[in-house]
């Protein structure tokens, strides 16, 4: 199916309002059961266009559904992507207001910062490493705009892959001298270890997720520009957070980054 321009604009406005007003909505496939992937990304790109028209800058991208378990659960064999707007970022050791969010959860990730553009098709992990300036520990705050985090693949793509906030920090590393499979992460909430994992949980190597992103963007004639920050996908399960929570991510050889939710 392909949605009309008007339908795409209406769905984008509907989902963006849900984000901006922090109020959950029903998943959009309830009303548009025949929507496909392309429609869903068209909605996502329309949300992006609306933000850019208001002066918001797009600073990078995020990958979602990068673990085998999540892909199987959603019945897909490729990950999905979303964009990062400038106001999604929060300074490390700072605060995130949960008033602005619906039902936030945090996940441990590795962020890539690029120094040269990356384009597909045919992009591979070696090219990703060559184009990466450095990697750093990141916590992504996901916040589905759908009630109870209940969605299908098409709905979540349209909703910018649940992207909402993120913070990075700690010790940056050069990808050339890092074993990107065995970076261990420890995600703590209020001083308690909640989740642990290693970076290979992301498609065997998070660099592979970035290569897949470049290849997926090529289908829309887009590239990853130099200077982008890319969240490569969750290493751990997502844990819910609320006001008063303090979240710390420790990553092997990469120090730590922490945040208060208020």
């Amino acid at each position, binding site marked *: 199916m392909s949605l009309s321009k008007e339908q795409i604009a209406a769905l984008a406005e509907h989902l963006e309002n849900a984000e901006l007003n922090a109020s959950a909505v029903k998943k959009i496939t309830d009303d548009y059961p025949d929507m496909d992937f392309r429609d869903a990304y068209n909605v996502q790109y329309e949300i992006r266009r609306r933000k850019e028209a208001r002066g918001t800058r797009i600073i990078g991208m995020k990958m979602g559904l990068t673990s085998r378990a999540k892909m199987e659960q959603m019945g897909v064999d490729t990950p999905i992507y979303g964009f990062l707007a400038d106001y999604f970022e929060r300074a490390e050791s700072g605060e995130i207001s949960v008033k602005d969010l619906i039902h936030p959860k945090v996940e441990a990730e590795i962020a890539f910062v690029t120094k040269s553009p990356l384009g597909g098709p045919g992009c591979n992990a070696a090219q990703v490493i060559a184009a990466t300036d450095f990697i750093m520990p990141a916590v992504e705050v996901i916040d589905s705009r759908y009630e109870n985090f209940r969605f299908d693949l098409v709905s979540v793509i349209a909703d910018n892959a649940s992207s909402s906030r993120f913070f990075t920090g700690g010790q940056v590393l050069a990808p050339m001298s890092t074993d990107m499979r065995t970076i261990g992460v420890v995600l703590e909430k209020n001083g308690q270890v909640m989740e642990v994992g290693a970076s290979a949980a992301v498609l065997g190597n998070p660099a592979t997720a970035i290569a897949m992103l470049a290849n997926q963007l090529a289908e829309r004639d887009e590239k990853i520009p130099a200077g982008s920050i890319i969240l490569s996908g969750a290493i751990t399960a997502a844990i819910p957070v609320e006001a008063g929570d303090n979240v710390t991510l*420790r990553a092997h050889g990469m120090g730590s980054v922490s945040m208060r939710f208020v």
Partner: protein
Amino acid sequence: MKQEQIDQYSRALFSALRSQSAIDPLTQSEPDMTIEDAYEISLGLMNLRIAEGEKVIGKKIGVTSKAVQNMLNVHQPDFGYLTDQMVYANGETLPVSTQMIAPRAEGEIAFVLKRDLAGPGITNAAVIAATECVMPCFEIVDSRIRDWKIAIQDTVADNASCGFFVLGDRAVSPRLVDLSTCGMVVEKNGQIISTGAGAAALGSPLNCVAWLANTLGRYGMTLKAGEVILSGSLVPLEPVSAGDYMRVDIGGIGSASVRFA
């Protein structure tokens, strides 16, 4: 429990081990068995193995993850003994079909001590100071209790469900690795099945070794220089059978692999 009963259960577990035939949970016939009773049975079991020529070369620590502690409803780890007959070389083939009942593989960090550790009062720092090296390790656990239907007393009595272990290809000073955040990647037949990090075991494998030294110290026992200490699984247990190949990689430490036949 009376010594007579303890001896009887030690012999039952020894016979189950040697014949690879599981027995009913001990806690089924002895619901009032304490953890202390269970350690007495475990010691009796080990003495039977020593009498047949096995030599104790270290200890293993179990029940170190939140998931397993919740499953067994205990909030402390346990320990068992390692003997020279439990070691397989890195990459070697372990004949599970003739040697084990219901084997499961765990990725761990092994400590090799260069100095004795005598608790109480052993800190993380003391563990680092007394450790010659840490190594990647697979522990292949097994339960002589039918279908792994274990209470904490059952697994303690059964030598903490220990089976065999494999040490990996590298030995690293514990001064060079952050043992709490080092990542672990476990593959089975070439596919990643789980990942973890050091903090999965009581917050750090160092905490596990310190716990063991302090716990044994209360009974006047010492961890000896040269002993190997398996510090506890960092990933969920994975059932294995003949034909499987498993590999573990640990960030900053190295890897280990084992085949099953």
